[in-house]
């Protein structure tokens, strides 16, 4: 963690990019005409948040955030599966 290249402002810039990606996904979630569009948008937003947790692990120097990343990527898959089942069940 002593690298000068990846301290503070550089990671803040990367976090800002992820925030923009989150906002783009959120906009699709608001606009999205179908429920499946909203599920896709939620997926994108979720992975932006997970990536920002990884960057926060780097920024704060605590590896506990990596546990959060590990559990969250598993839960994200389960959430997507549940949303897909819900989209299918709504229409039948």
């Amino acid at each position, binding site marked *: *963690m002593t*690298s*000068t*290249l*990846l301290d503070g402002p*550089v*990671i803040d810039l*990367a976090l800002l*990019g*992820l925030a*923009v*990606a*989150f*906002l*783009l*996904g959120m*906009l*699709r979630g608001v*606009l999205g005409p*179908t*429920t*499946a*569009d909203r*599920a*896709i*948008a939620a*997926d*994108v937003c979720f*992975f*932006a948040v*997970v*990536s920002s947790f*990884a*960057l926060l*692990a*780097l920024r704060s120097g605590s*590896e506990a955030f*990596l*546990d959060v*990343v*590990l559990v969250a*990527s*598993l839960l*994200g*898959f389960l959430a*997507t*599966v549940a*949303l*897909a*089942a*819900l*989209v*299918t*069940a*709504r*229409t*039948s």
Partner: protein
Amino acid sequence: MRAVIAAVLIFAGVLVMLIAGLGVLRMPDTLTRSSAATKGTGLGAGMILLGVGIAIGTPNAVVKVGLAIALQIASAPLAGHLIGRAAYRSGAPLWGGTVLDDYRRFYPYERQRMAWRREAGRGGPFDDRNEGSP
């Protein structure tokens, strides 16, 4: 040197995530949006995680990051497939310029099968029309 590699990976990943967000916003069709989201988030988040793992560099962090990346690579295509199939079945309109729709041939059969499942009282995991029956 390690920090340079990590920074390049992280910023490339952020760029791919931005492209994924843009694709989700701008693509004309639910299925193309799903495609942009699946590939973009899989590659982008994977690159960011790899960069973070290289930057931190302790064995613990490398193992956790490697597990997260493996999980992501295993689950992202499945999630994309499930969402795409659910979108098609729920009647999401296709883009006007679509040239190939292979699933359409199987769709009448799928509809019939779903109707049979409904009659048998098993309309899906969230079917609550007849609660209490197994």
